[in-house]
């Protein structure tokens, strides 16, 4: 009864993480609340000038998504490391990179996807036109998986390090810069009438690159972290 196909294993790990998240809802919802609050604070600080808000909206939503993502990264491996289940995952005969794909997919479903779905509601506060809202959502759908993938590497590297939470942010935020530029840029380009397709293609290219390299890099990082 050996069922070791990679697809099945990705599914097993994903299902496990989703089930755990449902049992511990507060951990899952906190980053989403953080996202909502950051977006809502900006108009209060900048002032309610119509044109300014409209202009900075895509950037604000994207930066808030980045920060919310960083906030949720400690959930990825830390608890598994503490209770010894990560050791069991590593000992599995399945390739570790496949298990990581499952974990990252679950992480995206729990942070990236809800952020994307929430974003148009809160971007409305900035009076973005409907066409820009759509571009914003598409850019988030392609961009947030890249954040989860890159974040997994950093989460693996800082596993078991004291003060790892802050270190993750320091490592990962600079790496998020290209995603931020093309993500926020796509909405600006669409609003300026140039068309967002070039920005979105570049985001998609980043996604492909990250989905190939991230599981391998994360595997290496986790193996080093578990050496001791």
């Amino acid at each position, binding site marked *: 009864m*050996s*069922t070791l196909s990679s697809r099945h294993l990705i599914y*097993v790990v994903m299902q*496990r993480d989703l089930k755990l998240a449902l*049992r511990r809802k507060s951990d899952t919802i906190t980053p989403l609340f953080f996202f909502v609050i950051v977006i809502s604070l900006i108009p209060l600080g900048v002032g309610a000038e119509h044109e300014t808000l409209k202009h900075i909206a895509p950037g604000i939503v994207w930066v808030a998504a980045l920060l919310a993502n960083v906030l949720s990264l400690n959930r990825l491996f830390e608890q598994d490391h503490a209770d*010894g289940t990560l050791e*069991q995952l590593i*000992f599995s*005969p399945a390739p570790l990179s496949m298990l990581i794909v499952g974990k990252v997919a679950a992480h995206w479903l729990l942070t990236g996807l809800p952020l994307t779905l929430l974003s148009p509601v809160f971007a409305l506060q900035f009076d973005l036109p409907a066409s820009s809202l759509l571009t914003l959502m598409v850019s988030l759908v392609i961009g947030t998986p890249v954040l989860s993938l890159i974040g997994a590497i950093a989460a693996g590297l800082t596993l078991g390090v004291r003060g790892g939470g802050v270190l993750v942010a320091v490592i990962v935020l600079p790496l998020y810069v290209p995603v931020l530029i093309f993500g926020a840029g796509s909405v600006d380009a669409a609003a300026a009438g140039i068309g967002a397709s070039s920005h979105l293609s570049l985001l998609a290219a980043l996604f492909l690159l990250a989905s190939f390299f991230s599981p391998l890099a994360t595997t290496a990082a986790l193996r080093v972290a578990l050496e001791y």
Partner: protein
Amino acid sequence: MLEIFNLVGVRGERRLFDSLDFQIMPGCCLSVEGENGSGKTTLLRMLAGITKPAAGTIHWKGHPLDQQWCEYRRDVLYCGHAVGLKDDLDATENLQIMAALAGVSITRSRVCEALHKVGLAGRESLPVHALSQGQKRRVSLTRLLLQPSALWILDEPLTALDRVAVEWLGNVIDQHLQNDGMVILTSHQHLPLVSTSHIIRLGS
């Protein structure tokens, strides 16, 4: 058959053990003894492939491990120092996930049956955080009944177990050895075994 040649264990700057040589034949139990910090867990983690040895080679069925990790892990069951259970899931879910990761799919009813055998009847659906330390250890050891493997690597399996459970574990290990299985374990307590076990001492 598991053979170890010239294994060296280093932790930080400290050399834990030097040129360790031993082999385990089918039907044999190896007990690793030594003081706290003498490298027992490190040795077991090396045999499980989680920590890399500083030097030396490990052969499984006559071939070096580096060429056959996947096959080796399918043949081996590793129970680490931590119980390795998710607190928010119940015992059955935990065991089913662990079996699925090892490539074995088992039904809920089979898991429940095994849990009855270790004396956890009626606790199958409780989240693991509601169980005592000893009960958690029992859940983790239930894998011995569910995942057929030739070699068991058990790190301190007796921690927090009561006398009945210790006796149960002794019986299960005896049976495994009679079926030509192999066991490597560390323990500070005495494990009642019918079969003889070889002992290696670390740190002497």
